[in-house]
């Protein structure tokens, strides 16, 4: 089935088995391996991507459901070879240990900052509550998101 959707800003129309999962399409057809499969049942959040600007589990979306939608993965945050402000904040705040959860964490945080540029700590923790870090790196992750929000507000001024 030909499925037309926007992937990281580009219109694509691959011929796909519509009953496959979005995470498999991203990793196996488009070689976008940022989104990771942790649990495969919507518990860990490591496969999080944005669909029409909202964080979703790519392991719980069918390829056939993508028609007409817009998908943004962690790879799509890079513009002209430059990391996104949020990615830089993760690097500078040492919010990456083993890195397995990082793409999902960043995409959940991206979804939050697209709606709210001045989130409270409680709002950040709520937005990331569906993302599990096995290194227990939460303190630095929350700091990175706070830092990114601050930088975003400064850029927006």
């Amino acid at each position, binding site marked *: 089935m030909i499925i037309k959707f926007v992937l990281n800003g580009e219109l694509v129309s691959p011929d796909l088995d519509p009953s496959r999962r979005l995470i498999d399409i991203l990793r196996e057809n488009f070689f976008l391996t940022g989104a990771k499969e942790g649990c*495969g049942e*919507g518990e860990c959040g490591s496969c999080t991507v944005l669909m029409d600007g909202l*964080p979703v589990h790519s*392991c719980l979306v069918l390829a*056939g459901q993508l028609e007409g939608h817009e998908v943004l993965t962690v790879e799509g945050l890079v513009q002209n070879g430059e990391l996104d402000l949020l990615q830089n904040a993760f690097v500078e705040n040492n919010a990456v240990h083993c890195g397995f959860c990082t793409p999902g964490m960043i995409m959940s945080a991206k979804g939050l900052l697209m709606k709210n540029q001045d989130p409270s700590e409680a709002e950040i923790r709520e937005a990331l509550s569906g993302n599990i870090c096995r290194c227990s790196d939460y303190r630095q992750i929350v700091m990175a998101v706070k830092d990114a929000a601050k930088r975003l507000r400064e850029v927006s001024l």
Partner: protein
Amino acid sequence: MIFVRPASIIELAAALAEKEGKTILAAGCTDILPGKIGRPWDADRIIDLTHIPELQQIAVENNELFIGSCCTHAQIAENGLVQKYFKALAEACAQVGSVQIRNRGTIGGNVANASPAADTMPCLILFGAEREVIGENGECITGFCLPLPEDPSADSGTPVSAFAKLGDRDIVTVARIQLAAKSVIKDGRLSAVSVVLGAAGQTPYFCEEAAQVLEGSRAEEELLEPFAAALAEAIEAHIPGRTTLAYKRSAVKGPAAEILKKLSLELYY
């Protein structure tokens, strides 16, 4: 595997009328895809429900609020009409799973999956929601109609409602007990109180005795003991001998206190 993507209710009805072997109705997929890794589909056909605009609507129609079956929990939680008229349902939807689950999981799927811990169910029962279905055997839910409360006036009073959920952790949790309550504030007191208990039996149920404790009151703190005791009795009647009975009898005091607090805030603000 045949994949069908109807774009309207008419196309959906036509797809349902075709006999194509075992069919799966797919919406948010938060219940059908977990555990699917590498396993073949036990079906001949998938009908995708996510491209039908009518199923994603929330609108007032003939003194009822229609909520399309493919409205997501996030959409319902943030909807102004739901927050205004059916606050308990908005609160329940805001507590389902994680942000990612709320962005995909739908109210129709929450009901169709029929988990005893489905968070929207106690509220739909509390508000007297009616299910709309299509298909020869009514196999597809298209939405829910919730009768709107009367407009606030001196005679009818101001409608209020609240939801409380107890799980193993504060957020991203499966309910161990749910409590939903509605009432009308008249002359500064609770009137026409209804209380529904969920996740404390196979299906949610009304708890008349607990509602009677609150009837005519100002949701005072002193009512917590008799309110929780009435709820504990109802739980015992519904799950006698179950291993979780002792826990639930005692733990219901938590959601009971939360409901009292929420109702008292409605009374005073």
